[in-house]
């Protein structure tokens, strides 16, 4: 039983109506595997609450967590 579920890195979606096919394909299929401090989606499973965690993937240390509201302007469609 796990308490939290990982939801992938937070990625900025390009404007689907104005980006090129190549840009869109890159957004859908390419992920950065570089170890760094990343913004990640995490879900507290029991409550269904999604939040953002900033995690250093090189050391597996969570640096900060915050509500999705703080992100929304730059990632929502």
């Amino acid at each position, binding site marked *: 039983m796990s308490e939290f579920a990982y939801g992938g890195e937070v990625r900025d979606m390009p404007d689907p109506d104005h980006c090129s096919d190549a840009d*869109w394909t890159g957004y859908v299929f390419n992920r950065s595997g570089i170890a760094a401090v990343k913004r990640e989606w995490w879900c507290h*499973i029991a409550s*269904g609450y999604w939040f953002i965690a900033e995690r250093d993937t090189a050391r597996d240390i969570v640096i900060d967590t915050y509500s*999705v509201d703080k992100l929304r302007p730059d990632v929502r469609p």
Partner: protein
Amino acid sequence: MMYRLPPVPGEWIDRTRRLDFTFEGRRCAGYAGDTISSALAAGGEMILGRSFKYHRPRGILSFANHDVNALFQVGALPNVRGDVVALEAGMDVAAVNTFGGLQHDRARWMDSISRFLPVGFYYKAFHSKRLFPRWERMIRRMSGLGRLPLDAPRVRTPKRYAFCDVLVIGGGTSGVTAALHAADQGSKVLLVEESPYLVAAADLNARAHAHPNIEVLCGSYAAGIYADNWVALIELQRMTKVRAGRIVLATGAIEQPAVFRNNDLPGVLLVSAAQRLLKRHAIAAGKSVAVLALTRSGYEAALELLDQKVTVTHVIDPRVDADGNLAEILKARGVIVLAQHGVHDAQADSAGCLQSITVRTAAASELRIECDALLMNGGWAPATQLLLQAGGKVEFDPAVQMHVPSILPAGMQIVGRAKGEFASAAPPPQASPVKTGEGAGTLVHEAGASVPSLAQRRKDRMGAPFAFAADPRGKDFIDFDEDLQVKDLEHAVQEGFDSIELLKRYTTVGMGPSQGKHSNVNAARVLARVRGLPVNAVGLTTARPMYHPVPMKHLAGRGFAPERATPIEARHRAANAVWMLAGNWRRPEYYSLNNNPREHHIAGEVAAVRQAAGLIDVGTLGKIEIHGPDAGEFLDRAYCGRYSDLPTGMTRYALMLDESGTIVDDGVVSRLDVNCFYFTTTTGGSATVYRELLRLNALWGLNCSLVNVTGHRAAFNLAGPRSRDVLSRLTSADLSDGGFPYLGARAATVAGVEVRLLRVGFVGELGYEIHVPYSAAVSVWDALVRAGANVGLRLFGVEAQRLLRLEKGHFIIGQDTDGLTNPLEAQAGWAVKMQKPFFIGQRSLRILAKRGPRQLLVGFEIAERMPALRECHLIIEGDDIGGRVTSVAYSVTLGKTIGLAMVKPPLAVIGTKLEIRLTDGAMVQGVVCPTPFYDRENKRQKLEGAT
């Protein structure tokens, strides 16, 4: 020969409780509190096992859980560690790795041919593929330790979870002191000790046991440290998984053997082993004892033995600056102290046990000493294995000839001998010269973790120069597990395996059951000598988990795959359901009414649905409600279809894609109210779909909220031409076509229960999905069954439903589609509203539409029964694969075999003949045909044709 002494103060044995057991078929006895090895030693047994490769006689070496040549078969249990496992009455003990018993091991001859078994022998001799199977059989018979009887009883060991502020690993002086210190400051402490008792001074032990903040766990070792201070603690019959706020390593130091010819004879043992035998079990190491001392611990042990009236004749000290005071004390008690002398050779008696040693000075003058025990101390190696596992680092400090910690991981401290600090009376160390891992923060610093200063270490004088007296005749063992001699390592280096990692893999040094605890340091020293490098330049191999070999029973988990059952479970069982697993749900595959075969029952269920009425439990579907002014907008974005314009009281099919345009789920959306929708997901997808929808809701920030009611509601599908008759007997709701049209959704009272009714057509007949509160599910089910009794209503299972939907040409996600199928390829473009402003997968679908389909899902039929034709059979086009069958079944209704296949676009034209290859290679031919196979105009589900 070892023997039992009169009572020694503080001994662990209970002399009033005698335990009888057998060893190699002979009767033996020990006391409660003895280990297997100590009981044997007290009885004068010097040879406890045979070595791994050369089958040389071996005895006690470390008496500290590293005696891998004293492993025993105890009844059905193989490889029991005699040095630590408590003796029990009635034990049937035998040495492992012998052929015909310990004394007369038929593999003794291996020792005499050892020079024909050079290092890397297997690599050099067994590279022929043709001969290998023969060699393999022989090697497998010769190697290996105990035997596991195949009928051994299955043993389950419990797992326990524990939490603590501070986990202290090691119950010696420094561990107990650290535990008391942390507990006094209010921390909840778990103190773990491998021995059956704490091993610090008696007053410290008593304080630890009495302290309310300390839990003491003896007889348990920390096998591994994993992420976030998660530590596995192994006891004989239990594993504890502990999550610790901080870890204090007080793991002590492991004494290292000296290197000389025949340093493995029974009777040659580590100084600390003799001390443990003496103090815990009142056993004298021998009748005439010599000590090879490279640190003061050899002198101290000699004094302790003398105090118990054991004869100690010689102390041999190779150092120039011997421990003067201690030497004078020993001399005064009649012991001969040979300074600047080294042991070069040991000789065995006819039984193979130590008889005498040869001692030399630097000037090569030789002296022979008769003795039946030689205690050797070749220095100490801090037990840093757990530190290394946790990401710490060690460096060889030439000043003290030890690998000492240089970098500590965050949240970890190391105290006492484990960090090279021996003087127990030493003042607390000052400012920390040790580098801590990044992020270690104040945790390490606040408890004053540090390594002692160089001056302090030198004052300790516990570092020993390399006691090394290689002999051209060999048998100067570096690794006692794997029978590796000095020349084996030298040859490996000469053959080019000259880094510590290569040396380990080629020679297997440190790869035996003791994992190099007595060999890694000496192997690094030999490598450094041969290469002419300082020891710190050759490095040390990484110690990986587990710290000790752990019995498989501790690692074997119990499968924990909980299954879900709907509220109708008991009714299904009463109706003789044959069960299958769908996702994690238990569902009836079909109902077995009598002894007829499976197909008979399924065909009967299908016929009932087509001709009268059937009832299936579909409560396993995911069920979600969404409320709020933006609920329609949310569904428009999450699904391919349009729902914001769905009239209240109507339903619509819903197809969900991922960002790449691949189909991931489907269901039915019904609008209950302007601001409320109720929708279903597939059985297997409910949890993941719900979680992803929650994420999208958080991301988009629309004014709506989702509730998962999967477990809150049961659901049934009542289908068949007589379904309206059945339902009308239980409700006053208007079921007429005008009042409740196809694809309608209604709130209604059925059998006195408030339910949601959805008119759906999944199986291709007039039908109603009835969504019922969980608590009322059984009463509604029973009412439906009773109401349908006289029209021939039958319960039907998943198999019948699969066939019914196949007759209608509906695909099942995950069976007829895979991880690459988009809706254009699945011929579900009708469910996709591309003109919407945005939905998940829309942008990718635009690209896919331009590219055109790479495969298409089509229906095909074959006139005959095809029992050998299965899902996954390939469609062959010329010499190439043209596609695959995704669903296939014989339809009794239609009198032919029907199926769905994913094929290359040119094969998707109606009338194309598909060549399908069966498992046995035979080919059959199917013809591409339009779907649905049954009721092509979909009249029956809409009403027309319903009676």
